[in-house]
């Protein structure tokens, strides 16, 4: 595509906003959205594909509640990784399929020195601990803690607003 339009543009935002609570369980789930926005279904899909390829959409599909499929344990692993190794370790963790989130975060002097965070879900605490033990050994992460969740209090996605744009 050689169009100079910004991605996402207002129409892209409107599409993502319309679909943010999920597509409908209808034979043609984009029909209503297309009609409301005055586009064809193919145009909607072509824009979604473009957004997907551009990385504006991380992925398109189902999100699953891990606790409902037997992944009862969720461990947030906080690690102290030397600056010079941080990018390398972060990338390696990103390649591990059990890791769902991995971020470098700011530290707080004197209070909080863990700078790399990743998340592991598993059927039991033990299973999470085993994965973490393997990963930290392999990646030579020496200082870390697993902070297990006790209870989920809120897990909703952020709501895009109709007029929000970059």
């Amino acid at each position, binding site marked *: 595509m050689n169009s100079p339009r910004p991605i996402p543009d207002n129409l892209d935002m409107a599409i993502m906003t319309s679909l943010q609570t999920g597509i409908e369980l209808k034979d043609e789930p984009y029909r209503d959205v297309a009609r409301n926005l005055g586009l064809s279904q193919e145009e909607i*899909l072509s824009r979604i594909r473009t957004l997907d390829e*551009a990385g504006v959409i991380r992925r398109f599909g189902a999100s*699953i509640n891990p606790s409902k499929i037997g992944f009862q344990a969720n461990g947030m692993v906080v690690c102290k990784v030397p600056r010079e190794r941080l990018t390398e370790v972060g990338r390696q963790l990103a390649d591990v399929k059990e890791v769902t989130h991995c971020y470098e975060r700011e530290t707080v002097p004197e209070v909080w020195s863990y700078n790399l965070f990743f998340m592991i879900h598993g059927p039991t605490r033990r299973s999470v601990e085993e994965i973490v033990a393997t990963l930290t050994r392999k990646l030579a992460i020496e200082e870390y803690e697993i902070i297990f969740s006790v209870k989920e209090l*809120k897990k909703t996605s952020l709501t895009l607003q109709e007029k929000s744009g970059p």
Partner: protein
Amino acid sequence: MSLRGKVVAVVRPPDQAKDLAEAIESLGGTPYVAPLIEVKPTKRPEALIELVKATVAGKVDIIVFMSRNGVLQTFEAAEKTGLADPFKESIKGVTVVAVGPKTRQELDKFNVTEPMVPSEYSSQGIVKLLEKEDLRGKTIALPRAGVVDNSLRAALQRLGADVIEAAAYEIGPPSDKSLIKKFLEDLVAEKIDTIAFTSPSTVKSLLKHAEEFSLTKIVNERLRRVVIAAIGPTTRKALEDLGFKAQVVPSEYTVEALAKEIAAHFQARDEQSPSGEIYDLDRRILQSLQFNFPLVVRPWDALAERLGIDPQTLISRVRRLIDLGVIKKIGPFPDLKRVGFKASTLIGVKVPHERVEEIAEIVNRFSNVSHSYLREHQYNLWFTITARDTQEIQNTIDLLKKKTGLQDEDILNLPVVSTFKTDVRFNLL
């Protein structure tokens, strides 16, 4: 057994729709009455009058009523020709056959009691009932709908009977078609789960009107998705002849049995997947939905084909997985940084044990807060704030402190420096 949550279209004329509508309601379903046909007195009553006269003249041995309307119109014709009383009198000497219980009830109103009723409420049932008799030389009167196939007449003639067939009434399109149009639109809009066809004429009318309103293609598609129910084999055959399959045909051809059979059909479908349990097929579905969702106009068709199941099964399984809370959403997951939310932070808070619930509730009320967990740590309440910029995050933290009385030293603010991965998918195979 229940029809809870199901919308069942009843396509008979209003005066006949009542019984089926009530049967559906009594099972918890929602009847959608959309008469596709209207019953009118025949425009050419001559044959019916002849039939009445032949009966009065004692020339008729057996009279077979195929519907409530047949009874009503025949007695009406007798009334109009001034033969009401002689007809009622002479019919006492005639063997009366009613196709089913509703027809028998109608006869009862005219004091014709205890007619013969076949065990199968259909034309075939009548043939089976009457072939036990010696029909040679017998005259059978057959008042019935105007435009019908003549297979019953032919069968009775093969058994040696003389048949006086007469159009007692005509079935035509309703004079007001707005209800049909609305019905077809609602069908296309997926507001109807089941259509209960109660005669071949209802089947034909539906397709004829789909054509009339230029909805043929889309109506045909919907008919392959909804549950099609037929009251008996004749209606099933009419559907088959037009390329549709009735998934539900009760073993007894009454509206009550039809409603029950529809409920049983849905129950059987649900029982394939008892609540709460995730079966192999569900795992395969979840896997495809997470890792390989097709970006096409008809994604369920494409997915169903890939999984080797029919789209209806797929959609009902997915709906169940959503209801169970297994699937939270199916759709696009934007990279929030790319859609205007540049700032994201993780907050850890030290909350005294006794204030956890109170403070969690205050925190969760903020629309920019998500992923809030109670965790085992001295910082025990953790959540993320996603915002347009760091100022908005600071404002949120300030507001939170104000509302909870928490101090800076109770709060860890850990903004994202770089993202290595956000991909919350679970391998289920």
